[in-house]
């Protein structure tokens, strides 16, 4: 199998071949021999040159992270045969930016109105979770194009709260 893997923003090419726990990996042309078993779902044990690594997989609504020991890496994986761009929600400095809820919670206050001017870092919505109120701030200077958050409703992690143009 051949994969395009992006780890913490760096894109690499990975070829995997093997059976019975023993794998030959070719990473950006370099050969690495790996003894691998899945010890339980989402926990992989790797032996590489005698070194033992425990890798944990964490898949959330928006991201895939792998933990090597206690270190976390953001990973994107593509089978090049079905390559598609993952860039969608992020946008850039110049286009409209979405304001998303960083955690599930309840919208307790909306601090601005639609079409108002906001500065970078200005609070737009207050979301309460676990006895703490958290101001969700504008990612850019601009105009609040739309407010989707409704006071008193619950939101999930990743939900779009507002769009700043």
């Amino acid at each position: 199998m051949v994969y395009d893997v992006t780890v913490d923003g760096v894109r690499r090419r990975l070829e995997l071949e093997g059976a019975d726990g023993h794998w030959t990996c070719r990473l950006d042309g370099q050969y690495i021999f790996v003894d691998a078993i899945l010890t339980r779902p989402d926990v992989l044990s790797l032996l590489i040159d005698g070194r033992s690594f425990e890798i944990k997989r964490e898949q959330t609504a928006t991201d895939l992270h792998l933990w090597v020991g206690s270190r976390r890496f953001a990973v994107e994986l593509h089978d090049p045969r079905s390559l598609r761009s993952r860039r969608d929600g992020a946008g850039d400095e110049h286009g409209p930016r979405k304001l998303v809820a960083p955690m599930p919670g309840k919208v307790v206050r909306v601090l601005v109105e639609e079409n108002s001017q906001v500065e970078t870092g200005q609070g737009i919505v207050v979301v309460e979770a676990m006895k703490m109120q958290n101001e969700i701030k504008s990612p850019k200077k601009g105009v609040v194009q739309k407010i989707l958050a409704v006071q008193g409703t619950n939101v999930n992690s990743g939900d779009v709260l507002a769009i700043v143009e």
Partner: protein
Amino acid sequence: MFKKVLIANRGEIAVRVIRACREMGIASVAVYSDVDRASLHVRKADEAYPIGPAPATESYLRIDKILDVARCSGAEAIHPGYGFLSENSKFARACATAGIKFIGPSPASMELMGSKTRARQEMEKAGVPFVPGTSRGLQSQEEAAEIAESIGYPVMLKAAAGGGGKGMRMVRAREDLRSALEAAQSEAQRSFGDDEVYIEKAIINPRHIEMQVLADEHGNTVWLGERECSVQRRHQKVLEEAPSAIVDADMRRRMGEVAVKVAQAARYANAGTVEFLVDQQMNFYFLEMNTRLQVEHPVTELITGLDLVHLQIRIANGEELPFAQDEVTIRGHAIECRIYAEDPDNNYFPSPGKITLLLAPSGPGIRRDSGMYEGWTVPLDYDPLLAKLIGYGTSREQAMMRLQRALYEYFVAGIKTNISLFRRILQDPDFHAARVDTGYLDRLLGQQSKTDVDHDSGQTIAAIAAGLFTMLQPISTAGRPGHQTPAVASNWKQKGRTEAMH
């Protein structure tokens, strides 16, 4: 002994008290809000009853509902845990009226300690050392200025009914006093419905050290050693240890004797904690008394070999303390990490959600008091404390190393936790040298965290593992969004529905 005890709490502390009941042959009764049906304390208890919707004001703070459950289930006593109703003297009184034993001090002791100014007045009479300042609310700007002048700047303004840093202001110079006092009073009014504010000398870089006491209902009171609680993030304790690295045997005895004096002056019974501020010259000043079991009680249990919850229940049952002060031995060192559902990479925002993978540490010197399990959805409605990881060692050094080992083994996926924060603290040279005060952690977090030396090889491993995971466990069968989001979503839906019904 009681045959049945109700636990008026949730989370790890409810589980901890339920375990104590089981160990003592006492049946346990849990109560739960709608979002806590799947919580661990409901599974662990012998009985469990619903008490209302998610908001604590409609469930865990509802005295009437909790007493109804106690009566119907035949519970003879109630353990309040910490938080919620644990320091509510009305609840303690209502229990007494209902003929149910409240496992804690008398309402009168709770009320005395609940008012900072009344407590200060009583304790000063008993000869307890205080930070120089007023022991009652300020009557006017003029009085404030006069007292500030006499004790010397910097001074602290504090709300009489306060806690958690609300209604508190440090004033460094005369010209800032007026506006600070107004701000403190209005914040106190907003937060506690009471604008009474008093003034104290400000202690620069103080330590927060507290002393555990235990008193039976026959007049016997003992102290069980101090806890160092200076490692705080925004006034919230994060890590505690016992003993304190700066307290020697003589200072411990003196603090213990003052703590016993405090408890006796308040006619205190059951477990309580006397909090002190310690300045850089090792003077200690009475701060307040917490009239309940503390979150951090396990560190005292590990160094004394005692079980405070067993003892609380025995005391409430009318028994005498089974040991005298000189039979208390303090041995070794214990450190507690409070594992919170918060995101260290995102300003410690709360992070409720479903736990998709949980690898928990165990082994030598490790105690874990947890309310978590794999597959559980952490509700968004309560305090984010998930579990406490406590390390014991022959020495402070060993306790730290064991905790680091255990934190290395600890892994929680699906929600964010502050586990990485403890890795950082336990590797910090200032923490190793026990150079901590209440500002320590905020200073540490203000610094850039060091980058990992092994980062590059980690990236290579992660890249390889990403491919291997895909071969060995295609993501569709595992913790895929499509697999976990519905559960969370339906939970929110359920929540919306139940709230709408009540």
